[in-house]
């Protein structure tokens, strides 16, 4: 690494830290609309980080994670509006419900492999959505608004509510990023990265692949549920199509992570930023923006499957911005095995 590169790397890391601190203080200097957009950004970021953990490391490519987002949304409503539980408490409880549902879902889905598993997650999501739409207490097919008393618990004025919801989203994003970072740096995380590179080799060196996948799935579900609760506070209502929106919580998330860089920790962040910037300029294009996203993500996969971040690493930076990698010997392992030789 040259001195210039090191300087660039450190500057970027400092900038990242600076931005994070700035964001923490957001409500003190940002306008309401900006807070709203950023709160939205945080939710998408969390979903992206979670999807990336499952698909990029644990090899569980889901097209149905919107199931747990919806479950979280509806559970939040059930606790806060129907059961009268403290609204703040209802948020983590929504996560618990998502976890409870995740267990049988997982038992069912893990009977399927690879692409069949992916579509299976979609079927589960469909069932959840259709089921939710049948329940009258939740407003049936057209949904229901979150009562104003619940919203007031988060702030007496609209501005205060926006600030609280912003901070909730920010805290969730920091938690998601932080826990993923710590996870990947742990022994469990090294196993995950080995799995990401080559599942068979990982298994042969002692990584318990099945256990890792189960833990990841069960770890991600409650976070998705909590995010669903926070999103409900932003959207102010629950409804089958909206809370279980495949486009918003699965399709766009997938594009974000793939374009940003799947299987990397910087990827989801980059992808989310890219998407939000694009949305500002493309929103009037209607369906075309989805088409463009689709074309773009396919192109990225063909060019460098590590996405934009992969290109940045290839041409600009010699090391990760958020350091988690140990000197990767997995590449060497793969190379030697390909040659059909014995490992020393």
């Amino acid at each position: 690494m040259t001195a210039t590169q090191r300087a660039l790397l450190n500057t970027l890391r400092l900038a990242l830290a600076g931005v994070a601190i700035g964001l923490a203080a957001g409500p003190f200097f940002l306008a309401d609309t900006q807070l709203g957009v950023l709160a939205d950004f945080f939710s998408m970021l969390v979903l992206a980080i979670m999807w990336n953990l499952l698909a990029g490391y644990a090899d569980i490519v889901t097209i149905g994670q919107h199931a747990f987002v919806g479950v979280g949304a509806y559970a939040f409503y059930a606790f806060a509006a129907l059961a009268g539980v403290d609204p703040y408490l209802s948020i983590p409880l929504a996560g618990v419900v998502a976890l409870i549902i995740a267990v049988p879902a997982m038992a069912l889905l893990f009977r399927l492999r690879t692409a069949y598993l992916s579509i299976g997650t979609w079927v589960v999501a469909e069932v959840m959505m259709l089921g939710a739409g049948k329940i009258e207490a939740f407003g049936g097919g057209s949904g229901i608004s979150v009562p104003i008393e619940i919203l007031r618990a988060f702030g007496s004025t609209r501005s205060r509510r926006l600030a609280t919801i912003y901070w909730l989203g920010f805290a969730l994003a920091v938690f998601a990023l932080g826990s993923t970072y710590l996870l990947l740096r742990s022994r469990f995380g090294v196993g995950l990265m080995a799995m990401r590179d080559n599942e068979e080799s990982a298994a042969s060196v002692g990584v318990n692949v099945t256990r890792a996948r189960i833990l990841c799935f069960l770890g991600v579900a409650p976070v998705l549920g909590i995010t669903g609760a926070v999103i409900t506070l932003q959207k102010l209502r629950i409804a089958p199509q909206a809370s279980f929106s495949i486009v918003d919580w699965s399709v766009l998330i997938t594009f974000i992570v793939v374009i940003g860089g799947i299987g990397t920790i910087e990827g989801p962040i980059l992808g989310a930023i890219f998407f939000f910037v694009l949305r500002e300029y493309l929103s009037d294009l209607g369906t075309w923006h989805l088409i463009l996203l689709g074309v773009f993500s396919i192109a990225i996969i063909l060019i460098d499957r590590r996405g934009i971040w992969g290109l940045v690493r290839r041409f600009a930076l010699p090391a990760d911005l958020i350091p988690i990698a140990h000197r990767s010997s997995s590449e060497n392992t793969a190379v030697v095995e390909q040659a059909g030789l014995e490992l020393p």
Partner: protein
Amino acid sequence: MARTNAAVLQVEGLSVFYGDFKAVDGVDLSVNAGEIVSIIGANGAGKSTLLKAIIGQSNRVEGRVRFDGVDLAGRSTAEIVAGGVALVPEGRRLFASLSVEENLRLGWAVGRKGSIGFDEVWRLFPILEERRRQKAGLLSGGEQQMVALGRGLLANPRILLCDEISLGLAPIVINDLYAIIPTIKASGIAIVIVEQDITRSLAVADRFYCLLEGRVTLAGIPADTSRDAVMKHYFGE
């Protein structure tokens, strides 16, 4: 198909890379028409890699492979096989869910059309004719090796590359297989035999090469070379 002493296969300065790793390093070898050439070497010496490179299945290759004088660079495996080079892969590698007959038919479909047909294969391996409709995955190791050999022969090759055909088989079975080699040679096909088992392969070979860590360390005629010399170059010092 004149029996001249022209080289059917000529390998010049061949190096094969996996990433940065050099599995085969500057190998020169030749095989003449109707010859049996043995390539011996320990596990990991680069023998299989060499054969795969000849058949066109390696990505990064330096040097040259000539078949009947023609440079094979840039040719696909399908083209090379159709041109007369057939590989009997290490570990048999049959299609388990296909029948014996279907496995053989594939060999015939990808090769040159010539004088070897099913009749010739049944004559060489009568037991396969009995088992022709059985799924290849259910056969014994020896029978599977026969199918693999038959598949290679049905391509009517000018040169047959045999990768470790004795691997994992009982001595009696190996004897039977090696007894067939002279018959194949007699029909004018050149044979390259890659083996870890030195004794058997040197017993049938006209010439041999010894490979160690990707390099040719010894080349010669079995009758003229002492066992000690072979051992020394097989294991290196």
